[in-house]
């Protein structure tokens, strides 16, 4: 039996290394091994009402029934019924459920990766209370095991697992980070042996939004928090999570966990990155195998705590009419519901909520690794129109969010549609609105 790494090689161009049949067997075995009581219950509960379609921006934008969320796990439902359910022997004996074929599974790559942001909106609409997003995440694991993860995600995950960086960079991120510190005139705490808070950054910020990286360091400095970056655990993103490689996701998370333990951090601070929050806050301990010896906080939670404690004073930010995009992984799935709005309130932001906001916000369209999948771009642009229209409808001039992947997605839309708005980072706005000890900027 091949190891996942071997499967990965097959994906990277030489599919003949693994026959389609064994690919499927692999995927289904992977899926079966992950089926526990909870997932089985979810698969059992579906009554084919199709209501989840009406929560999904991919379906709403296209009215194409194949984008119905639960349909995206159809082969796995089929496999469960056939392999693990109570009547599996009957299903097999009478051929009531066909064996999942390689062609079928390959077809579903589009549905499980290109057209799903794992945003979890469907989990809120299901009248049976099925957490559809959780099922899709498990289906992705199986697809990865079958060697059917999209090339972009697979490659980045493999690279990140091996090197700690999803891609080659001209200079190591450590050096880039220090350069940003010099450029923005802020001290980058790097590789301190001990710190209360361990920081990390989205590599999106390093490459596209260095000001956001500087803002993080500036705010931490302002608060006088004992904190540090660790050059062996810098990147917040987790491509293992996107690609569905569970063991890879664990290996990637372990870098951060080990560094946080090494510097005796009490808190691992997740920067403005949604899926990093899900991966570290809600999945890492399971992969690690025991509870983490530190707490995991999102930067907005950390700042909201500081606001409440009176440690952080902000002056009003003159942003004019402003709207806010709720990153799904943080707000809907992660439970960071109040912190961003508490901060905006402290900033005196004139907030005009989107039609669908808070836990019910639509995804930016780039989540779940979709932004990285090149061939998914046309579909992604179609689905984004819903979101862009909602933003336009608020009449806001400023548009905030607190996830660099979301931000990247909107920037990409700006370029594609010639849209007149650009997302701004809430963290950067905080950094720009700090009130120093003397009460001035």
């Amino acid at each position, binding site marked *: 039996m091949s190891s996942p790494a071997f499967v990965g090689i097959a994906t990277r161009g030489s599919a003949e290394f693994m026959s389609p049949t064994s690919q499927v067997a692999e995927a289904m075995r992977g899926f079966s*091994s*992950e*089926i526990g009581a909870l*997932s089985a219950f979810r698969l059992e509960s579906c009554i084919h009402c199709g209501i989840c379609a009406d929560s999904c921006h991919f379906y709403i934008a296209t009215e194409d029934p194949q984008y119905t969320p639960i349909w995206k796990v159809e082969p796995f439902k089929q496999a469960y019924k056939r392999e693990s359910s109570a009547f599996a022997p009957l299903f097999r004996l009478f051929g009531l459920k066909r064996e999942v074929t390689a062609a079928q599974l390959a077809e579903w790559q589009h549905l499980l990766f290109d057209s799903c942001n794992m945003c979890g909106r469907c989990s809120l609409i299901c009248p049976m209370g099925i*957490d559809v997003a959780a099922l899709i995440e498990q289906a992705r694991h199986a697809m990865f*095991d079958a060697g059917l993860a999209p090339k972009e995600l697979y490659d980045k995950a493999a690279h990140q697992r091996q090197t700690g960086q999803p891609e080659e960079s001209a200079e190591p991120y450590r050096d880039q980070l220090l350069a940003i510190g010099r450029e923005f005139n802020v001290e980058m705490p790097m590789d301190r042996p001990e710190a209360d808070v361990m920081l990390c950054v989205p590599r999106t910020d390093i490459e596209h939004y260095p000001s956001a990286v500087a803002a993080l360091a500036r705010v931490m400095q302002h608060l006088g928090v004992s904190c540090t970056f660790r050059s062996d655990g810098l990147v917040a993103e987790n491509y293992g999570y996107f690609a569905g490689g*569970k*063991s890879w996701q664990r290996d990637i998370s372990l870098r951060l966990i080990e560094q946080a333990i090494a510097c005796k951090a009490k808190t691992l601070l997740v920067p403005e990155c949604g899926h990093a929050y899900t991966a570290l806050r809600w*999945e890492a301990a399971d992969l690690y195998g025991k509870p983490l010896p530190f707490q995991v906080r999102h930067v907005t939670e950390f700042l909201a705590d500081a606001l409440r404690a009176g440690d952080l004073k902000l002056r009003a930010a003159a942003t004019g009419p402003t709207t806010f995009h709720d990153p799904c992984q943080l707000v809907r799935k992660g439970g960071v519901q109040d912190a961003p709005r508490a901060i905006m309130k402290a900033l005196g932001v004139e907030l005009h909520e989107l039609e669908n906001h808070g836990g019910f916000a639509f995804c930016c369209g780039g989540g779940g690794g979709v932004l990285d999948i090149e061939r998914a771009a046309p579909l992604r642009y179609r689905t984004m129109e819903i979101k862009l229209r909602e933003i336009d409808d608020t009449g806001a001039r400023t548009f905030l969010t607190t996830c660099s992947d979301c931000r990247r997605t909107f920037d990409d839309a700006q370029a594609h549609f010639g849209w007149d708005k650009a997302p701004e980072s809430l963290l950067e706005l905080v950094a720009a609105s700090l009130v120093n000890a003397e009460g001035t900027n």
Partner: protein
Amino acid sequence: MTDTSDAPLVGETLRRHGISRRGFIKFCTATASAMALPPWMGVAMAEQLRNAPRPSVVYLSFQECTGCLESFTRSFAPTIEQLIFNVISLDYDETLMAAAGDAAESALAKAMHDNFGKYVLVVDGSIPTGADGGYCTIGGRSATDILREAAKGAAAIVCVGTCSSYGGIAFADPNPTTAWPVSAIVEDKPIINVPGCPPIAEVITGTLLQFVTTGKVPDLDEQRRPKVFFGNTIHDRCYRRPFYDQGKFAKSFDDEGARNGWCLLELGCKGPTTYNACATVKWNGGTSFPIESGHGCIGCSEPGFWDKGSLYSTLSSAVWGKAGEAGPRQVLEVGAAAVAVGVVLGVASAGVSRLRQHRSEHDGIQPSGDDQP
């Protein structure tokens, strides 16, 4: 009793007994009313009967309780006297005839001989076939033999009562005498069943009268019952039906609902599945019928009613075993057994699934953190 080989016409007999035309029309009108026929049919029947010959009737009783005959003799329209003296010639009936012993048996032989092929054979009681027919013998001959012989020359057989129609109480589990209904013994003669325990008197006389009037077997349902009397359920014609439709039900025999005359369905009334004329013809000369007296229908004119569970269990309720009424105890028994088997199968199924999962982990897939939400 009259010699009938060249039987006098009914009309002639009537005149001889001083019954006027109006009296006979009235009698036929009452009979038509009892048979739920359109009223003008009474007049037509009167005209037809006046010109019909009086047929010979032979009445045989086997394994029975004489309840049917008791009912028969209490017919009000027509009365048994009117029937016997004016319309038919009752040539043999052990209980009613004056003759006894050999005289009675020879009357039977003579009637069967003289009217061969023309007489009506009325039977009440089931026919026991166990012990070589020894459970019921008359003059040393078994019921089966007597029936077979009498049936040979009969124009038709009228089975009076549930026993001759369906086997009745003797036929009920465990049927110790191996009793059978007439239809199981005689297969080559038209059989008209008039079931009931007992049947309504007017239904017995009405059926005979109708056969005599028309000379034909009336329209029968699948239980070979005359549709004219057995075409509707008790429930369909019940005066308490409006309460059923309103959802007003007596819950016990002495509650408010019972006193208000509400529907007795929940007290076990079998009216909805029982076909009989009780609700229209009624009993004792149209005085009332069981439901009117506050007791549900027990379904006595339906096959096998003795074996259909308690008379007091609701019609739609489940039945347990051959006859017993079901209850929570059976649900618990069946449920517990089924649940136990289900648990065993479920545990086995889950065990197999977990084994398969365990194996696949050893096959190289990394253990995965199952099921985080």
